[in-house]
């Protein structure tokens, strides 16, 4: 006899509202039903009412944690539409801010994952170290969360030479802390008891369900947009891609911790090799008719922007496909067969960012069919 446990829309395990309907037998999960759409804000419609320059700030506000990569992808897409290249120094500065954001996002993940398994001390320590990254972001861009440095044609603000020593000191502190967390993750018996062999996603399933980002890299799928399809300054920077084979929650955590170390390495390289020169080029406000697809590696996976222009100052259509939307399909195979106690940590292991992913199409998790829903139908949607 199955018993239904509703997780959401309001639940301490979720940081943002979504609805998961778990059918359990005792402590074992038998089935899960996922309902999305609680954070839908009509952003794609808002994109097609503002001009290209104003849309930069709108794209930043799709997600709070990964805002820089949204605005960078958007700016790169519009630059492709207009057919211009930003200057080299701008590309390096964009790379620095994006990697700082990756460090901040992964430390946030570590803290909340520790909270989900009851280890509040690690939560507080990880978020204490995150303050170092926030201070660096504040120094380089003027804001702790929203950087507002990207513009079409380059960046608005330069990295001053007198800030570089503070930068390097901050990066050293972060590297020390991350090495400590990696040692802790590998050796602490209670963390291993709660994270190992849980929420396993096999390599075939990861490829079949099109998982992206650290979720798929932890299952052994070797894909990273920064290396396979380089954009910006990434073809000149050298770094390793962190891969694990087991596919469980522990592997996902280790991939993210190793990525923090790689990001620190990239920022150090970029600061050393950054060329001089201008930081922005002039772009006409009217973009000729064209369409383009641009992909980048957000902290959570592959982020995709499709933009179509029609010769005016206002884009005709902007479509955002965020990484969490791609990871949803693999969640059912991670949950079924596990226990109720694992739900928060397995859910958090794909690093869900529900604010990013509510767009118009709905996926029926039982049959796998996709259906596009119009705005009117969404307003009259009842469940």
């Amino acid at each position: 006899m199955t018993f239904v446990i509703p997780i959401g829309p309001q639940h301490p395990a979720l940081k943002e509202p979504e609805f998961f309907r778990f059918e359990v037998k005792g402590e074992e999960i038998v089935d899960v039903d996922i309902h999305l759409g609680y954070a839908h804000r009509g952003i794609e419609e808002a994109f097609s009412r503002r001009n290209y320059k104003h849309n930069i700030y709108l794209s930043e506000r799709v997600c709070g944690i990964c805002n820089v990569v949204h605005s960078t992808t958007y700016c790169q897409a519009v630059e492709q539409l207009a057919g211009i290249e930003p200057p080299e120094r701008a590309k390096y500065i964009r790379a620095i801010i994006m990697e700082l954001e990756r460090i901040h996002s992964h430390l946030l993940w570590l803290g909340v994952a520790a909270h989900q398994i009851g280890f509040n001390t690690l939560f507080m320590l990880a978020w204490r170290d995150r303050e170092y990254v926030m201070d660096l972001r504040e120094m380089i861009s003027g804001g702790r969360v929203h950087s507002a440095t990207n513009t079409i044609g380059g960046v608005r603000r330069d990295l001053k030479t007198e800030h570089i020593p503070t930068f390097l000191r901050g990066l050293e502190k972060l590297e020390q802390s991350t090495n400590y967390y990696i040692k802790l993750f590998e050796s602490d018996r209670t963390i291993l008891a709660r994270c190992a062999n849980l929420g396993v996603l096999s390599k075939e399933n990861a490829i079949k369900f099109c998982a992206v980002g650290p979720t798929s890299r932890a299952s052994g799928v070797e894909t990273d947009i920064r290396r396979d399809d380089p954009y910006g300054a990434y073809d000149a920077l050298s770094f390793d891609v962190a891969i694990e084979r087991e596919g469980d929650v522990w592997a996902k955590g280790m991939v993210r911790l190793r990525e923090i170390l790689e990001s620190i390495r990239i920022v150090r390289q970029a600061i050393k090799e950054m060329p001089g020169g201008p930081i922005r080029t002039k772009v006409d406000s009217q973009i000729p008719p064209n369409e383009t697809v641009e992909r980048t590696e957000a902290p959570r996976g592959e982020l995709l922007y499709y933009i179509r222009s029609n010769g005016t100052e206002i884009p005709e259509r902007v479509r955002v496909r965020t990484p969490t939307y791609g990871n949803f399909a693999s969640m059912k195979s991670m949950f079924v067969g596990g226990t109720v106690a694992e739900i928060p940590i397995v859910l958090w292991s794909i690093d869900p960012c529900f604010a990013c992913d509510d767009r118009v199409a709905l996926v029926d998790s039982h049959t796998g069919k996709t259906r596009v829903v119009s705005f009117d139908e969404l307003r009259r949607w009842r469940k």
Partner: protein
Amino acid sequence: MPRIILQVLKNVLRKPFTVKYPYVRVEPPEGYRGAPVIDKEKCIQCWQCIRVCPDRAITVSKETKKPSIWHGRCTFCGECAEVCPTRAITMTKNFELTTYDIQRARSE
């Protein structure tokens, strides 16, 4: 024995990491984008700031005929300060902008 016990016992003897705000204030770095401030003497009424604001937060004030920025919509992006030809708008370091009356939270 868990590895973290050394860190935990060391922390008891250290000063806490917390900054006891608001009794202790931390100064934001140079270039921090806080509240914008308008110098009415320098403004030449070109209205470039109104055109470039992504949020329509700047309007013309009826009494002074100069721009007025409403904090309820301002995203503190700094585009108005960048585009102003006479540097009449500057971004200060003031981030303590809480108020009881949102309609009166303006920079003019």
